């Protein structure tokens, strides 16, 4: 890899995130591991959205749906494994994270395919609003469907397992999430540089151009949207395991808004934009929440300033304009 300024900053960001939980452990403040895990998972969710939004220019205001679906996959599989009741067609639940991850990726990817198939017929504001509407549909369904706790949500009493390690240790669980995040970032980087990524980014920049060379923008976007949904769904499954709890609030439109906020804070379409954004957001939330009850006001103010005056987000400030091949 070429050592550009952006690559250097990315490396420092990744190293800092990795250092936090080790330092926290050494200082006897394990809570900061939890905070770092939260950053990693939110960054993963936003990396998923970044595929659709950053590369494809698809402003999905409904990615909370996939985040929540991933969470519910984890919750429901764990609940069935705990109770021993079969789930579907005689299949049982599972407490194994990797099983849960695969199911979460498949289910949220398929739902993404279905939602995308209809939503991508529209564009612009209509796309923003129809994705929001689909997420609201899932949200209300989750609230009123009694089988898995409705609005009360679903507790995962013991964190799901990963072969060979104790996931209840905050540091261990952090490392699992960190590795998954790095894998997702690699996937993002690969896709961005690939033929598919070229077509997806070209469709963002100029839809007519893509069609004129004989590529159907709809198919490219739909594929991108489904992959994006699958990655965000995976993050949802990890988030459920972090909190040992899932509830419809993971599906709420505020969550969709927050995911977009993470990307913008960090820098749209940038590889490490979601990580930078998630780190900033969680630190803001944590620091401001400790300072004042009015933290949401100041969070709004900071966001507004970033949108109005710091358009490239944190990475835009630090690393300059994004470069494309």
């Amino acid at each position, binding site marked *: 890899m070429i050592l550009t300024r952006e690559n250097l900053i990315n490396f420092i960001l990744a190293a800092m995130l990795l250092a936090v939980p080790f330092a926290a452990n050494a200082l006897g403040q394990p809570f900061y591991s939890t905070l770092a895990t939260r950053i990693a998972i939110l960054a993963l969710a936003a990396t998923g959205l970044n595929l659709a*939004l950053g590369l494809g220019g698809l*402003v999905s*205001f409904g990615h909370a749906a996939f985040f929540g679906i991933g969470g519910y996959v984890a919750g429901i599989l764990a609940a069935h494994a705990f109770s021993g009741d079969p789930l579907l067609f005689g299949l049982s639940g599972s407490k194994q994270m990797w099983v849960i991850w695969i199911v979460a990726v498949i289910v949220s990817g398929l739902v993404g395919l279905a939602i995308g198939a*209809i*939503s991508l*017929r*529209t*564009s*612009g*504001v*209509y796309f*923003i*609003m*129809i994705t*929001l*509407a*689909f997420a*609201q*549909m899932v949200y*209300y*369904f989750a*609230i*009123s*469907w*009694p089988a898995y706790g409705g609005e009360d949500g679903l507790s995962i009493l013991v964190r799901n397992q990963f072969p060979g390690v104790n996931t209840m240790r905050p540091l261990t669980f952090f490392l699992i999430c960190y590795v998954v995040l790095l894998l997702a970032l690699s996937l993002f980087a690969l896709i961005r540089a690939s033929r598919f990524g070229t077509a997806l980014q070209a469709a963002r920049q100029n839809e007519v151009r893509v069609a004129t060379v004989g590529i159907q923008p709809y198919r490219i976007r739909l594929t991108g949207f489904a992959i994006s949904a699958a990655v965000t769904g995976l993050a949802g499954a990890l988030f459920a395991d972090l909190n040992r709890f899932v509830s419809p609030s993971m599906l709420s*439109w505020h969550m969709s*808004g927050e995911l*977009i*906020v993470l990307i*913008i804070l960090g820098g*749209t379409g940038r590889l490490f934009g979601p990580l930078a954004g998630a780190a900033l957001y969680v630190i803001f939330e944590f620091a401001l929440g400790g300072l004042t009850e*009015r933290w*949401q*006001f100041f*969070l*709004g*103010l900071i*966001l*507004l300033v970033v*949108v*109005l005056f710091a*358009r490239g987000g944190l990475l835009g400030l630090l690393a300059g304009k994004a470069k494309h091949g």
Partner: protein
Amino acid sequence: MTLALALEQLLNGLQLGVMLFLMAAGLTLIFGVMGLINLAHGSLYMVGAFACATVAAWTGSFWIGLIASLAAAAAAGAIVELVVIRRLYDRDHLDQVLATFALILMFSEGTRWLFGSFPLYLDIPPLLQGAVALPGGTEYPVYRLAIILAGAIVAFGLYLLISRTRLGMRIRAGESDREMIGALGVDIRTLYTVVFALGAALAGFAGAMVGALQSVQVGMGEPVLILAFVVIVIGGIGSIKGALLGALLVGVTDTMGRFLLPKILALFVAPAQAGMIGGAAASMLIYIVMAVILAVKPRGLFPAAHA
């Protein structure tokens, strides 16, 4: 189920539709003229309701409160436009969504800062209290009829404003061609501020009218904001006519769904089950309707010139 009940429910749907129209009209107007997607519209609705409740409590008059709600929302709208919104016209929808999302956070927490966390008291004015008899032997609240009337007046007023006045002419010009209107020598910045304040005033008016019937509290604008977006997306963003028809469609669909779905399901399952599943289905119904409409007509029922 009697015919009278069905008629009453239809009237309820109409009235809910009118409430949504009051909200959606401003939203769609702002989008139509400036191409701006304003999530903070719900906050202006809240500002109107709080202004009305506060002034009504000081003066003892709902009507003075109602005027105050128009003034406060218009003023808040104008200030927001001058300070924030005008920097967003040239931005993409993503930036607009984000900036106005940030405004929601600030408005909600700021309102709590000023007014505290408890809901405010705002009652229906004595003139409009109580219910009147309808044909068929049922009664209907006067205030709800007044809301239908107010919605009809606003719809007609907007029609006159846009088709018959100089401001309306400029709005139409702005909708069809933004450069053109600048070339005509109209001060476009002032026009945008005026249109935004007008949209805000409509939202504030809706907030005050509805606040008297519901609950004046922080966050009251959010559910209605999302519904208003569903309305304008169904109707075709930028189209006032679309907003009106979309609002009525959503109002009637939602009311009838809540009313009929559990009854239909009760034919097949136990009543308690029917209530729950029917309730769940009813809350998803308008989103399903929206998805179907957009799948068939991706730019809504009445697509505006640009979107």
